[in-house]
């Protein structure tokens, strides 16, 4: 019985290890290829073990091209500003909805909920943002459309406020003379830190990874975020050379390591997430789990 059980455990662990390798190996190929000598790549292709190690691709990316640094700048700016705005808007909408005594809250809840069931589609949306609001090729194009509020997170946050903030606490604060803004800031938010952290992470991730707004609304390389840059470079690695913000040094142009640089630039794209993930892993898992519980 015990022997049998131990065998079971071994088999189950082996299955999980295989699945984990399935998830991780593509990244090994990516990193390994990015530090392989260009000539070796041309001869043997991308491989898991570098035939000859070389950091030329990174030297080129960081040394003679400003595009990557600029891309990081745009991405960080958009992520910070966007996530902040999203969090403010979401909290301010979710909190009143969580108040059982607020007249008309069901109407508002329905308006929010309906937007999750039906949408006008991308065509009217694109025409509106570009023709009425003229956000094409502005930094707002990366911040405002679609990402600045997510109905799902509003409902999730409302449910969380309902469950974790006792009505009696709010009532007591009001009797003490606190106004609604004070109640929100001093009582509700401090005890809701876990949900705020979770929403911040999920929204931050969607801003960091967003490329669709860039695809629709940005065609000036001045506003290329790291994802847009990646998208452009996979199709046309020469973009780094021709881009007005790309290279500074003429002498290096001829030696663009075009095969390896593709992988190096992708590594640069995932690196920040991989670095912070271990520290926030707990919150990501929590976010997914909370999100799964319906609003």
């Amino acid at each position, binding site marked *: 019985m015990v022997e049998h059980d131990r065998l079971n455990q071994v088999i189950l*662990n082996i299955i999980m290890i295989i699945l984990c390798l399935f*998830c991780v190996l593509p990244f090994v190929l990516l990193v390994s290829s990015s530090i392989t000598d260009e000539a070796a790549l041309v001869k043997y292709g*991308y491989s898991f073990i570098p035939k000859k190690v070389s950091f030329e691709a990174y030297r080129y990316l960081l040394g003679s091209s400003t595009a990557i640094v600029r891309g990081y700048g745009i991405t960080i700016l958009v992520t910070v500003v966007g996530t902040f705005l999203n969090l403010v808007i979401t909290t301010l909408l979710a909190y009143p909805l969580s108040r059982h005594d607020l*007249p008309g809250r069901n109407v508002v809840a329905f308006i929010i909920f309906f937007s999750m069931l039906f949408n006008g589609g*991308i065509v009217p949306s694109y025409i509106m943002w570009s023709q009425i609001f003229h956000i094409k090729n502005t930094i707002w194009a990366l911040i405002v459309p679609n990402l600045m509020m997510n109905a799902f997170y509003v409902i999730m946050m409302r449910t969380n406020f309902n469950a974790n903030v006792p009505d009696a606490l709010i009532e007591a604060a009001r*009797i003490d003379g606190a106004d609604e803004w004070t109640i929100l800031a001093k009582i509700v938010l401090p005890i809701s830190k876990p949900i705020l952290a979770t929403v911040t992470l999920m929204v931050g991730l969607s801003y960091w990874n967003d490329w669709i707004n860039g695809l629709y609304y940005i065609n000036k390389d001045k506003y290329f975020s790291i994802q847009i840059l990646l998208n452009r470079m996979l199709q046309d690695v020469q973009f780094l050379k021709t881009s007005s913000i790309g290279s500074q040094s003429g002498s290096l142009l001829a030696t663009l390591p075009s095969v390896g640089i593709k992988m190096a630039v*992708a590594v640069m794209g995932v690196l920040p997430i991989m670095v912070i993930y271990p520290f926030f892993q707990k919150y990501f898992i929590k976010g997914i789990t909370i999100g799964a519980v319906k609003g």
Partner: protein
Amino acid sequence: MNKSVKHRSAGHSRFKRYLPLYLMMIPGLVYLGINNYIPMAGIIIAFKKVNYAKGVLKSPWVGFKNFEFLFTSKDAWVITRNTILYNLVFIVLGTVLSVAVAIILNEIRLKRAKKVYQTLILIPFLISIIVVSYLSYAFLSTDNGFINNSIIKAAGGEPVNWYAEPAYWPFILTLVFLWKSFGYNSIIYYATVVGIDQSYYEAAAIDGATRWERVKYITFPGLKSTIITLTLLAVGRIFYSDFGLFYLIPMNSGPLFDVTNTIDTYVYRGLMQMNNIGMSSAAGLYQSIVGFILVLTANSIVTKLSKDDALF
């Protein structure tokens, strides 16, 4: 307490009392109005011949012309077929894999190993689909790809031009989809498994149930409700596809369109690359309306099966 009762009785002070709460909701509602509700009104574009110079409202009406063009073309059939078939395969395989992983995670006793597995299988979910397109390119590139160079050449075969051979793509796209999403769904199912009352397992152990029997009679039934909800949610979205998966992973390659074109990629190409707003908006409205009907249908089915699992 008395004070608040008195408060509630007076209409004017009642409004004054709630005013700050209404003010708080303004930014969110304005955003929702612009981002979601104006485009809903914009579905009229599907019945117009849009002329940017005149503006949407002044562009001439064309009735159902755009839909006639769309549905008499071969595209309407291809994009509908692809969108639905891929989704069905994704739903079935994705659910089986994720539920299996959740159960395996629950059975594994090494706490630390369990943590590591959860952390690793979630990585693909965190990565942008753009980076995934680089990863698949590293494997599939005709000249430099790992598969052509390290596997096919080593075995003495002829290199395959992956980005021009439609036959492989249903498998490739399914594999990429599973790779990117199974960890996320496994975590959701695993959370449900962890929530199952432990006393059931203890009672079963006392009764001498085997491990497999416990999975079959306790874990699996415990997961049923989550499986139903997530599956029907997915069925409700069967008319929508992950644009990035179908556009970026095949690198927008023309020869593959027959097996990679979905409603979402079609709408994008019509709008941004072929400047065919009529067809594009007709396809978009077709998606919105059928999608809406499907969500309502899916929900009413859940309501019938088990009321608690319904969404609304």
